[in-house]
């Protein structure tokens, strides 16, 4: 029997990066949000280490405002693949008085996650945190390294990044530093969706069109439920919607859509004229919202 392996260059690059993480670090962890990018990372990690198990745990920073469908999906995936899952809750950081819950119209727990994440890194002494961020998402992320060194305050210093030459990754760090690793840096949103389709990867149901109670604000579609602040004049409608990114309910807007199959979703993304993060309420706070959050240790 003769069969030839023709590599998919982006997939091969991501696997190379994941193997470097396992080899260069003592306590890596995969930051898992239940979104399509971190689900893709899990598949890539399976491929990198097969037939062995993925040699690091998953860490989920739970804002408490996640879509229930995402949490259900997370627990199912972890059980199926026999992975170790660590969950740390933003609610605990609030209870400990480390962060203060935001109030009012745009209240979100999104930025509060950073504190919980940094505490978890310290608690478990993680030296490498693997994330699903992509450079095509946002302009601050376009300047991100594959191995991005953070100081012991989790800070990103954009002017002082290590040059990354060819595919040689330098993960040497000092005590207290850690590295954020982005194996799918070079993938686009469309790459991720096409990969999910080709590989037949399961994703949470909220990525597909479904009926949902929503309201409209600032030209965006918001989920109507108890976690999302809504003013009395903001009327609730039932609409067919789907989510393009999956984050905290308070910062993830839905899009009106009838795309209820993977084929329809991929077709919709291909023709889309709005960027993925255009549906992220957290990025709309200011022109440099992501950059500011990254500097203090955000994902």
């Amino acid at each position: 029997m003769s069969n030839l392996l023709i590599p998919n260059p982006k997939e091969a690059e991501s696997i190379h990066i994941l193997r470097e993480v396992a080899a260069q670090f003592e306590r890596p962890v995969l930051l898992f949000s239940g979104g399509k990018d971190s689900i893709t990372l899990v598949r890539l990690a399976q491929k990198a280490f097969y037939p062995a198990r993925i040699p690091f745990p998953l860490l989920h920073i739970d804002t408490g405002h996640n879509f229930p469908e995402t949490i259900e999906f997370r627990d199912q995936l972890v059980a199926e693949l026999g992975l170790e899952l660590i969950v740390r809750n933003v609610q605990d950081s609030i209870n400990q008085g480390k962060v203060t819950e935001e109030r009012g119209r745009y209240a979100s727990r999104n930025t509060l996650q950073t504190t919980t994440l940094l505490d978890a890194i310290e608690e478990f002494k993680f030296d490498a945190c693997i994330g699903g961020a992509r450079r095509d998402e946002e302009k601050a992320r376009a300047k991100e390294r594959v191995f991005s060194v953070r100081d012991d305050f989790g800070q990103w210093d954009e002017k002082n990044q290590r040059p990354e030459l060819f595919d040689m990754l330098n993960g040497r760090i000092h005590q207290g530093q850690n590295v954020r690793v982005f194996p799918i840096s070079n993938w686009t949103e469309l790459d991720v969706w096409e990969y999910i389709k080709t590989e037949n990867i399961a994703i949470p149901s909220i990525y597909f069109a479904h009926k949902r109670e929503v309201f409209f604000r600032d030209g965006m579609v918001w989920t109507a439920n108890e976690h999302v602040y809504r003013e009395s004049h903001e009327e609730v409608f039932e609409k067919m919607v789907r989510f393009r990114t999956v984050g905290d309910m308070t910062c993830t807007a839905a899009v009106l859509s009838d795309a209820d199959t993977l084929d329809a979703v991929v077709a919709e993304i291909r023709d889309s004229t709005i960027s993925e993060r255009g549906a992220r309420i957290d990025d709309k706070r200011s022109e440099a919202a992501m950059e500011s959050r990254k500097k203090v240790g955000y994902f």
Partner: protein
Amino acid sequence: MTHNRKLIKIATAGSVDDGKSTLIGRLLYDTKSLTTDKLEAIEKTSRQRGFDYLDFSLATDGLIAEREQGITIDVAHIYFNTAKTNFVIADTPGHVEYTRNMVTGASTSQVAIILIDARKGVIEQTNRHFFISNLLRLGHVVVAVNKMDLVNYDEDIFLKIKADFEVLVEKSDFKTDQITFIPISALKGENIAKHSELMPWYVGNTLLDHLEVLEPSDLHESTVARFPIQYVTRPRTEAFHDFRGFSGKLYGGSLKVGDEVTVLPSFTESKIKTIHFFDQEYSEALPGASITITLENEVNISRGDMLVKSSELPKSEKQITATICQVNSKPLKVGDKYTLQHGINRVLAKVESIESVIHTDFSGEVPASQLKLNDIGKVNFRLSKPIHFDTYHDNKSNGRFILIDEGSYDTVGVGFID
């Protein structure tokens, strides 16, 4: 995913004000890669700044400090696709730290677009950009003569710049068919995605058409196979109790089941038993694949070892000479010790002597006692253990390394083995 679409990686190089950001913004606009929200942001900011045109450079200028100073700090990666091709652009800034940044950006690219301002012609920076393209042995260089709108789309000006540049090409290792000249106006969109009616004398491809006809297979080198072991995969599960696989990325050439191989540094010989990718087995893997290999007999292999075909052994030496590009502000001096990372393998290295600093304009070299940031020079190293290498000229993946500072752990240099 991208199996039906090829992947082309491009580095862009230009001096300050050559219109590089504008060109990239224009490519994004013309391939409809700018989303409505980004386009609206560009329109809004262009209006605020009082421009009567769309300032496409705003599509790429990112960070707060960059917008304040109107500069680009670091290599930014930009993605767009056409129906046939996925493109990645490594956008490297043209100001002070050009060498460091361009070497970094070009290291992950197959093609360079070198921008020349039609009013200024071939300048010192152009020499440097081309020198680096030559040093890194990129597969193709596009010389984009920009701002043709400011020289009345004059063919003579274009031809003069082409002739000046061809003098550089003769001094390089490039063949003439690896270099393409295109007259453009990024601002006006001439010869970017559509043929310029204002330059009827130019009959070649538009920039975008040209980038689309490039084939990755022509841009990759084909040479001998090198398989550095990244990770030893031992599942220790019931189903795979005795499985001992060697995982890594394959470079240079393909490997087949049954190939007679030698493991370095032990020089143990064996045969490839199986080639795995995830839960499938293959009889052959092409270069670029991240695979797991098992061997016919028990061989002691650990991370950093290399597997090669027994008939194609690399050099194994403790004394090497390399062309170094210093990418850190701390200079490299005789007697300095570094960690040398050759692919994934790390050894200690001591600078025995510095032969010269090389002028990056093809005008030769001068003796030197140190390499400062952005210097390119010839350096002799003594290593703690032999490395198993090829020259960069013969085999790019196995002829390069980075230098890691023992104190800061920063990546301070990149080397190309002679």
